[in-house]
């Protein structure tokens, strides 16, 4: 399934005075959308900056589109990448949209002015304004259009939708789907918006405290996490704890227990074998899966 990788991190470590990132190992598959999710300050944006050579790692190696990134990115490689930062740079505040676009046109030889115009049109952006005067969402849309206008092979989006209204958000999703349609392009993104991850991602990477908690294929992830309401004579928390994949038990009245599992099909087999009945089932949302993973992580680090 996993074929070529677009980005590969090998043992990346970054030591900061009050934060240690890594060691990170990541393989971002070519031709897919991968989303990194995790709480604030988990190291997502720092990871992006290192991938782009904007920050230097203390240990480990990074490979981008098959090339080793050693001392910063060379210009040719940069031209194949589109990047949307999580925040707009204040030093560009007095710049006009058209001026920033001219700068991009100068650097990227694959800059496609028609594509740029089309993106501005679809997103309803007027680039004749000074960037500092644009509303937050408008500036975001402008920067988003810029990141795509040179038809990059690899797109890094750091919280692309922050500040967008629901309609603009929908347009953005559509643009990204169309961008991916060719099949040979890759998106790596971070997001806090559950719906966005659900609509876009093929793979999900969970990060916390500067580490990767896990990498999952999206549909597999959602189909393995469920909350089951299990009922049966003699069922008690002690027995329920033996259920495969069990990640939490709550009493739900009588002999019914609310059991969360990350191995749904095995858990169901277990219930059948033990003669317990599954009264009802509920899929977990992304945020619920994340907090369960964080909890497990906390328990396992305490155990060590």
């Amino acid at each position, binding site marked *: 399934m996993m074929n070529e990788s677009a980005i590969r991190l090998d043992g990346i470590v970054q030591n900061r005075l009050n934060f240690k990132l890594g060691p990170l190992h990541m393989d971002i598959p070519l031709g897919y959308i991968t989303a990194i999710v995790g709480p604030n300050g988990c190291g997502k944006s720092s990871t992006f900056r290192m991938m782009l050579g904007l920050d230097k790692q203390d240990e480990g190696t990074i490979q981008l589109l098959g090339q080793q990134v050693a001392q910063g990115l060379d210009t040719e490689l940069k031209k194949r990448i589109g990047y949307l930062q999580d925040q707009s740079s204040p030093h560009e505040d007095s710049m006009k949209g058209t001026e920033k676009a001219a700068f991009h046109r100068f650097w990227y030889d694959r800059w496609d002015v028609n594509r740029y115009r089309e993106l501005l049109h679809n997103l309803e952006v007027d680039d004749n304004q000074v960037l500092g005067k644009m509303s937050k969402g408008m500036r975001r849309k402008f920067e988003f259009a810029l990141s795509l206008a040179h038809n990059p092979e690899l797109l890094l989006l750091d919280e692309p939708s922050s500040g967008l209204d629901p309609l603009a958000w929908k347009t953005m999703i559509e643009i990204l*789907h169309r961008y991916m349609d060719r099949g040979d392009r890759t998106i790596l993104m971070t997001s806090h918006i559950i719906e966005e991850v659900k609509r876009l991602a093929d793979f999900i990477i969970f990060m916390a405290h500067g580490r990767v908690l896990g990498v999952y294929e999206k549909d597999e992830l*959602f*189909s393995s996490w469920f909350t089951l309401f299990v009922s049966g004579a003699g069922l008690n928390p002690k027995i329920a704890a033996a259920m495969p994949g069990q990640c939490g038990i709550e009493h739900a009245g009588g002999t019914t227990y609310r059991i969360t599992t990350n191995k749904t099909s095995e858990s169901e087999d277990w219930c059948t074998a033990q003669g317990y009945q599954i009264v009802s089932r509920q899929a977990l949302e992304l945020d619920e899966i994340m907090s369960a993973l964080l909890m497990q992580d906390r328990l396992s680090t305490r155990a060590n």
Partner: protein
Amino acid sequence: MRLPIQISEQSAEPLYHQIEVQLRALIVSGQLTEGTLLPSIRELAQTVKCSVITVKRVYNDLEAEGLLRTRQGTGTYVAQVCEKERDRYRLGAVMDALEQAVIAAKRVQCTEEELESMLKEAVKRHFD
């Protein structure tokens, strides 16, 4: 084109299976005729909100069954479905529905006679 496929995230059935069953039904029932170009993998994944990996799996499975064929670079098309297959499928769906009805009847302790007379009544209502 938008395929009328709907999935339930709450279902015990795996996503790929839900999509596969529905797409197979659309093809074998003749709603999608031979030669119809299916949406691209990314497009279908977007409409049913699943990952492209799942859709790829569905397309591959149905291609292996001979219901779809992929032409390099142009896309995935509906293949020819033979009459026999179509018939088997058509009656199969009815059989499944009947089976479900019988199970439901047994659950509320219906007798065989009651069930038969109910079936006759239902047939009368719809055919006369």
